[in-house]
């Protein structure tokens, strides 16, 4: 499973777990050296991903990892669930289309907050979203 390569994971089952995931993400972002706006954006992106799991998949996890190359540091976040999956990914990636009834950032919002965004989903199997943000 994908999550094995990650440093730490927070299971998402209850609404309360969303807060734990935010906290974890913010702590890591702070440690890496992100400023307050970026910390808040990372926390918001995590919120959004965790909420999607809580609302639509019932069960899943958010995992965290550090990124590092020659010059930069960054954070990598994985959202994994075994929910119903998304049948039309292009559709949910369109601006103005959000499954949660227009509230929240939606996936395009998350994509915009981050430097890298990747999604994989299979109907009936689940969804996997990976986001990355680099420190500038």
């Amino acid at each position, binding site marked *: 499973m994908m999550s094995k390569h990650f440093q730490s994971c927070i299971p998402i089952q209850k609404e309360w777990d969303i807060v734990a995931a935010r906290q974890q993400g913010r702590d890591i972002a702070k440690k890496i050296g992100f400023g307050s706006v970026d910390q808040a954006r990372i926390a918001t992106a995590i919120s959004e991903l965790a909420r999607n799991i809580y609302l639509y998949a019932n069960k899943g996890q958010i995992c965290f990892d550090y990124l590092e190359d020659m010059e930069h540091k960054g954070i990598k976040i994985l959202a994994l669930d075994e929910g119903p999956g998304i049948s039309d990914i292009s559709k949910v990636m369109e601006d103005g289309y959000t499954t949660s009834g227009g509230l929240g950032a939606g996936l395009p919002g998350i994509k*915009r907050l981050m430097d890298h965004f990747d999604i994989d989903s299979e109907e009936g199997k689940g969804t996997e979203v990976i986001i990355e943000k680099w420190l500038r």
Partner: protein
Amino acid sequence: MVLEKYKNLLKNYLQSKDETALYRADQFSKQSLQQEISPDEIVQIHIDAMQDLYPDLPEDMRLSLHFLLETMISYGIAHHEFRALREKQLELKYEIEVAANMQNTLLNTVIPDVEELDIGAVSVAAQQMNGDYYHFIQDHRNVGVAVADVIGKGIPAALCMSMIKYALDTYPDNLSSPKTILKLLNRVVERNVEPGMFITMFYGFYNDEDHSFHYASAGHEPGLFYDASSDSFEKMETKGIVLGVEENTSYQQYSKILSVGDMIILFTDGVTECRRGDQFIQTEEILDIIKQYIHMSAQEIVDHVYRYFERLQDFDLRDDFTLIILRRNS
């Protein structure tokens, strides 16, 4: 850099407390928008500036500013989304403009220049693309005129009209027979247009030799006949089902003899369904306006009538508007 600027402006305001400083804030806000700085980033700039200006800012104040920043994050996302959507909208608008230009080229028609008839025509789209259509055919000194209206407006209606025009072009031998033209077009529409889309159409043909005007209508708004000798109008009542409903339909043909000064007035429901507030205007009102300008040329009359109705609807047409006048000159 942006921070330095903001800090100076803020410092300036805190000292002077005057409108000039606030005006500068206004300017700064506009510049920031241009530089795509989002609302949450402005809050961050404010926090940083405050911490620079007041290193001993009380802890509660510092935390409250941070709290404000967190509540602004979603506004930042919405701001970026708005920008992206606006760009997309501009793209779409441009594409529709191109399509509308292409429609104009495709459906271009020239008002026939014949000695006996004075002809005027105006057709204005409610949205960018016109679902009304008119077309003139000049056959020596005879004139064919078609007016059509697709039920519905916008792009689908406009696309449909090109079909009518090209179908019409393929029947050069039948142009003098309105009932045949409608029968043929009905078949084309019935075969090619999805159910639920209808076209009303009027087709008439003026014969220069006996000054007769033969016409037939497929559910189209009845035209008006102006009798110059009695200075009166008469509705040109017709029977005939709209195009595209029944495969084999026959249309009845009617005719009028035009004396000098008589007029044929054709239009679409964008004219008769003009509203003042939420009331439809009466046909009499159209007649009154036409009468008011009746001493002018046919083109001047239709232009004036259009301008009158445009004003009546607060310069915001609800439906495509087409008006045509043919008057026998000599």
